[in-house]
């Protein structure tokens, strides 16, 4: 078994609950003038016009935009799953041309991204096969499942679980992969409101425990403001970055207390207004 990338202090016994610690110093992720068109000639569909932003190590960044603003296209470009028309994504100092080893994606559609023919433990273990030996994998699967609250559920199949539990398993797979950046593509869009709240807090706890940098794409404004250190607001298609808002709310966050803060309402309204403007702008344009 080969170990790819720099080894980082990620084992649970070295968990640090304060400060930012990462294998990489400097800007973790740079998105520079990203542009993406589909088709050519008269039939060109311009999805991303010019998207530029940075993510610093340890940061929790949420990307929000109106529906149809190319969020998934943006995320697939960042993840190295498709090549942009122009512009580039730089991850830990290197231009992304294929999916990087220190990046993990949690997909929106957990029922399709988890493999139904494997147990949850096998699903979590699968991406680790190129990184660790068997004993190490078993230990890490166990840890990952514990940290998402699925201890002892590893032998179940995904389809024996509720939607919320399946998405927990998908998150466990993501963090078990030991990424420097965790990309999450509207991960809670398909679960019910109660489960969604639980999962939001779970992501915050995991981010604390593993010190992972998180880039979280969502269309839900409350979710974005509640989770993020910084919210990036996108315009409608063809998409560019409208605004970059620092969320200076205290941590740890709490579903009731944080959302009761006047500052929370202020930021939320600001994001809301920007999205409404983006929507009306987009509809005028098309």
């Amino acid at each position: 078994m080969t170990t790819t990338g720099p080894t980082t202090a990620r084992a649970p016994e070295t968990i640090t609950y304060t400060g930012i610690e990462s294998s990489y110093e400097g800007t973790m992720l740079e998105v520079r003038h990203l542009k993406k068109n589909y088709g050519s000639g008269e039939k060109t569909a311009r999805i991303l016009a010019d998207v530029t932003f940075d993510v610093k190590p340890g940061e929790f960044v949420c990307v929000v935009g109106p529906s149809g603003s190319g969020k998934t296209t943006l995320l697939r470009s960042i993840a190295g799953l498709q090549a942009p028309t122009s512009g580039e994504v730089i991850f830990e100092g290197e231009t992304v041309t294929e999916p990087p080893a220190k990046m993990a994606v949690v997909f929106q559609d957990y029922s399709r991204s988890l493999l139904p023919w494997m147990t949850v433990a096998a699903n979590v273990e699968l991406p680790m096969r190129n990184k660790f030996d068997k004993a190490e994998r078993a230990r890490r699967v166990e840890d990952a499942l514990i940290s998402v609250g699925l201890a002892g559920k590893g032998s179940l199949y995904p389809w024996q679980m509720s939607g919320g539990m399946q998405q927990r398993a998908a998150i466990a797979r993501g963090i078990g992969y030991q990424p420097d950046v965790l990309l999450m593509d509207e991960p809670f869009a398909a679960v019910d409101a109660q489960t969604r709240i639980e999962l939001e807090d779970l992501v915050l706890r995991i981010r604390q425990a593993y010190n992972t940098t998180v880039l979280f794409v969502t269309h839900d404004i409350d979710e974005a403001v509640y989770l993020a250190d910084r919210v990036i607001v996108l315009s409608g298609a063809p998409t560019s970055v409208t605004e970059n808002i620092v969320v200076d709310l205290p941590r740890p966050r709490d579903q009731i207390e944080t959302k009761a803060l006047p500052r929370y309402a202020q930021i939320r309204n600001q994001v809301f207004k920007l999205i409404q403007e983006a929507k009306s702008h987009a509809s005028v344009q098309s």
Partner: protein
Amino acid sequence: MNTLTDTTRTALTRLWLPVALVIAWWVSSAESTSLYFPPLATIVEVFVRDWFGPHFTADLLPSLGKFLIGFTLAAVLGITGGMLLGMNRYTRAAAEPIVLFFRSLPGPVLVPIGIMVIGIGAGMNIFIMVLGAVWPTLMNTIDGVRSLDLVQQDMSRSYRLTLTQRIRYVVLPNAGPQIFAGLRTTLQMSIILIVVSEMVASTNGIGFYVLYSQQTFAVAETWAGTILLGVLGYLASLLFIAVERRVLAWQAGITKE
């Protein structure tokens, strides 16, 4: 009404007809002097004499051996070929009409070619089985590989699974249900082809025994051989279903949930 009597009732309703049919056959044919319908008792007697006797090793075992080799080769070739052709859009498109042609070709018409190329014997029987029965599995594997979900593709790439891992853990199991549907047709086709090729191009095997009996007007032997083929076809199908249930247990689970 408790469940025990319920199951007994179902068992009884399921069993009365086959039992009645066998008894009816036995009784009605008991005094038969017809050339074509010998008494069932005679057929059973011949069956036991031949198939629990010399023909077990002379014909039954060779047939089974050829069948196992032929079916396994057809299955392995069909699945690997389907994987290779199916993973690439262009090879897939190029292969389609040719595969469709051979899939639609009634396999037994290949038998004369087999006789000319290889002659008569076990090698030819196996060759014909593979050549005629590989296509359903090949075609279904291609379809199964193509049907790979876009999210699963993204997942495999973003977690940097190697090609072997992708095939083993993602592509192959995903195509599993379709591969098995193809294998089932390949199985039926293999049985047909082994019997046909033994009938016309072999000096042993069950197919040879049955056709030879018919040509020499050994009527009870013809009946006994036909019954044996029926029983073997039934057993093969049972075995296949058991394997399929085991391998595709996850799929049954999904549809039940």
